[in-house]
Each structure stands twice: as structure tokens, then as C-alpha cells.
């Protein structure tokens, strides 16, 4: 099974997908016999939670009775959808293909002549209907949970100042090892995912970047030279210089010089 793509709530969702590009060629019109308006494709990834969800949607679009699904028609629409997804080069989840196979199997069984002598033979659609209905209940439950008042979204705990006797609230202790273990864990996970690259850069430059930023504010210019402490020696000067260059690259600071050989000033943009 492939993993569904869970989007972190903090990351903005991609607003618009480019419309279909097939073999390097942009497609301006969707297949004509497509029941689903092409706009639906844009919201596809955000809207459907999987093949069951898509099937429920297709059934509803045609106002079909879930208990009497015309499998052939639904299969056709479903396959068109899956095909379209493939064309737009989306990462097509294996679950959708499994469902397509299941639909095809049901369809083929329904095409076979029915055995009248076997009275209680199961409708091949029964299993699918059961799954759809079961899924639907939890889909509803999920939306019910979302509608319930959430602490921190709909209501907020009281947070008032406290007049208390002079005793300090004990704060949790951590030791360096705990902190490093946590970071080691992240490194391991990142190595496994390979999505992100934590560059193996020296911490001193990062730390100096923070230091330089804290020396600046947006109103006042700070003289470039004042950032350097000669006491730190050559290495310290180099580290500061690299930190400043890195901050400039990241556009976190501005550098101004009135004329050639005039003092250079830094400030936050």
C-alpha cells in the first residue's frame, strides 16, 4: 500500500494544480464523456480520502441508490477518473487501482448468467455496499468530531495572573543527553525519509547568525565593523563574516554603504 499524503496544517495547500499535461503536451479540454466537471480535478486531492470516498461521490453525483449500484457505469466513471489522475502525473495511490480491480471483478461476475437454481447466491455488489456504508458512518463521525467544540479553537482556558506566596514553580529539568537523543532521532528519521536535507554545517555559523540578528534592529543601522571582536582571533572573524554573508543571502539583513570606502552599515529590512 502506498501512503496517503497527509498535509501538515501549517503548510499552505497547493491552490491550483496545473491542468492536464500528457506526454509534455498541455490538454485544454477534458475527455468529453467525463461526467465529472474538470474543475473537480483541482479539488480532487483535497477532497477525497481514498477510493471509497471517491465511489461515494460518484454514486451521489448521479443520485444513485447505494443499495443498487450500476456497477458497469460506476466502473467506467471510476476508471476515467483514475486515468485522468494518471495523466496529470499525480502520485496515483495503489488503493485506487485495487478498487478498480474490485469493480471490474464485480462487473464480470454480474455479466455471468445467473444461476436461478442457487437461490441464495450473494449479490456480488453486497461486499462493496457493506464497505461503502461502513466507511460512510465514520466519515460522518469524523465531521461530527470536527463540529464539536475544541479547546483552543472554540473555547479557551482561563489564564489569569496569580498572586501567590513567594515560592518558585519547579520547572522540568532536562539534561544534554536527552536533548541530543531527541536530535539524533530527528537525524535518523530524516535519513530514512531523504526528503529533507539537514546540512552538516558547523553550528558556530548558525549561532553567529542569531547573534548578528540580535545586534540589529530595523530602525538603527549598525556598523559592520562593530560586529567583529578582535579578541576572537582569525577564526572568530571568519565565522562572523560567513554568518553575515549567509544572512545577506537569506535576505534577513540589508547592507548599505553610502559611497566607496565609506563605513558599511547593516540593519534588518
Amino acid at each position, binding site marked *: 500500500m502506498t501512503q496517503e499524503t497527509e498535509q501538515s496544517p501549517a503548510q499552505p495547500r497547493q491552490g491550483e494544480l496545473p491542468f492536464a499535461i500528457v506526454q509534455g503536451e498541455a490538454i485544454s479540454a477534458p475527455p468529453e464523456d467525463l461526467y465529472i466537471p474538470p474543475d473537480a480535478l483541482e479539488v480532487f486531492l483535497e477532497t477525497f480520502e481514498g477510493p471509497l470516498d471517491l465511489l461515494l461521490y460518484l454514486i451521489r453525483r448521479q443520485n444513485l441508490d447505494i443499495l443498487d449500484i450500476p456497477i458497469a457505469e460506476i466502473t467506467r466513471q471510476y476508471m476515467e477518473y483514475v486515468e485522468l489522475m494518471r495523466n496529470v502525473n499525480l502520485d496515483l495511490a495503489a*488503493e485506487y487501482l485495487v478498487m478498480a480491480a474490485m469493480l471490474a471483478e464485480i462487473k464480470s461476475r454480474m455479466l455471468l448468467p445467473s444461476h436461478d437454481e442457487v437461490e441464495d447466491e450473494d449479490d456480488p455488489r453486497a461486499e462493496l455496499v457493506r464497505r461503502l456504508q461502513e466507511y460512510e*458512518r465514520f466519515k460522518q463521525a469524523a465531521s461530527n468530531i470536527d463540529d464539536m467544540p475544541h479547546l483552543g479553537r472554540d473555547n479557551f482556558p482561563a489564564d489569569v495572573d496569580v498572586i501567590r506566596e513567594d515560592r518558585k514553580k519547579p520547572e522540568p529539568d532536562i539534561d544534554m543527553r536527552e536533548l541530543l537523543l531527541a536530535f539524533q532521532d530527528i537525524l535518523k528519521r530524516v535519513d530514512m525519509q531523504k526528503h529533507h536535507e539537514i546540512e552538516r554545517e558547523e553550528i558556530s555559523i548558525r549561532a553567529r547568525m542569531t547573534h548578528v540578528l540580535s545586534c540589529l534592529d530595523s530602525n538603527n543601522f549598525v556598523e559592520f565593523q562593530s560586529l567583529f571582536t578582535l579578541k576572537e582571533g582569525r577564526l572568530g572573524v571568519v565565522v562572523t563574516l560567513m554568518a553575515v554573508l549567509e544572512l545577506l543571502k537569506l535576505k534577513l539583513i540589508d547592507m548599505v554603504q553610502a559611497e566607496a570606502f565609506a563605513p558599511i552599515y547593516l540593519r534588518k529590512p
Partner: protein
Amino acid sequence: MEQKKRQCILEAILISADKPLSIEKLLGFFDTHDLVNRNDIKESLAELQAHYKDRGFQLIETVSGFRFQTRDQYKQWVTQHWDEKPAKYSRALLETLALIVYRQPVTRAEIEDIRGVAVSSHIIKTLQEREWIRIVGHKEVPGRPSLLGTTRQFLDYFNLKSLDEMPSLSEIQDIDKLYPELDLKMKEDSSKEDT
């Protein structure tokens, strides 16, 4: 201790607490010579609930105890404290949570079976970090998969005294009620096509 003073002390304790406090815990705030018993506390809590029934905040009872919190109807103003809107939960997360709530103890495979898609590890991790779910045991099948269940914090977060207060799982839904939001969105989109 006289009634009014007791009420004020409880009010001060609860308004400055960072978590819900049970009657037992509240009792622990008093000294023996304060001469306060469980019934006194119950009585004061009821008075406080009545006192705050039409104010900007209220005293609610969750599974772990009593907590003062702002009322839902003022969230529009209260949320201005923060620059960012509170995170919206994805449907995948909510569906996974719903399955854990109603089917607990449940394995990840069982959740995947009903949803028809793999459950991402991020979702499980997010739910665990929020302390809404936890591993409650292991199923005695090959691989001994973890069984997931909800926590006390989950109930606290949703202001519930017990899981029985969750809306009951619906009967088979009327299919027409599905996806109203998508329908709307598509209508909007197509009306914009002419512009």
C-alpha cells in the same frame, strides 16, 4: 469556613489552574483547619456554575474535573489573541480519530481496512503528540500490532465527562447529504468561468 469565602477560594484556584481539577484535588488545596469537606466543595462548584451561566466564560466539568473556559459564542473575538488561525485538522486525521474513538481498541490495519487507504504515520504521530490517543495494548496476532485507544486528555480537550457523551455513530446515512461542500465549490468555480 464560611460559604462565601470558600467560593472565592475555589474560584481563585480554578481560574488560575492550568488543567482541570477534580473535587478530590480541590479538596487537597484546603488545610484541615479550613474545615472544608467534599460536600462543601460540590456545593460551591454548583454555585459557581450558576453564577457564571451567562458570562463570557463558564465553569465546565470534564472527565478530569472542573475548568473555567471562555464560551464558544465569543471565539470570534477571543481568537484575535493569536496571529495565526488555529490549525484545521485534515479529514484524514479526523476519520482516523473517529475510527479510534468508536472502534477502540483498534489496530492500524483495521482502520486502514475501513477507510480503504493506508493511514500515514504522521497522523498517528500527531494524534499521539496531542495526547488524544495512545497504545493501549497489543493484539495477539502475528506481529502483535499495537491497539490504539483514546486518552483522558482527548475527553478533556473536547469537554467530555466520558466517551458516552460522544454523538452516537450514525445509522446508514442518506447518500444525498454527502459532499454538499464540493457541490457548492464546483458551482462557484463554473460560475467564475465566464469572467
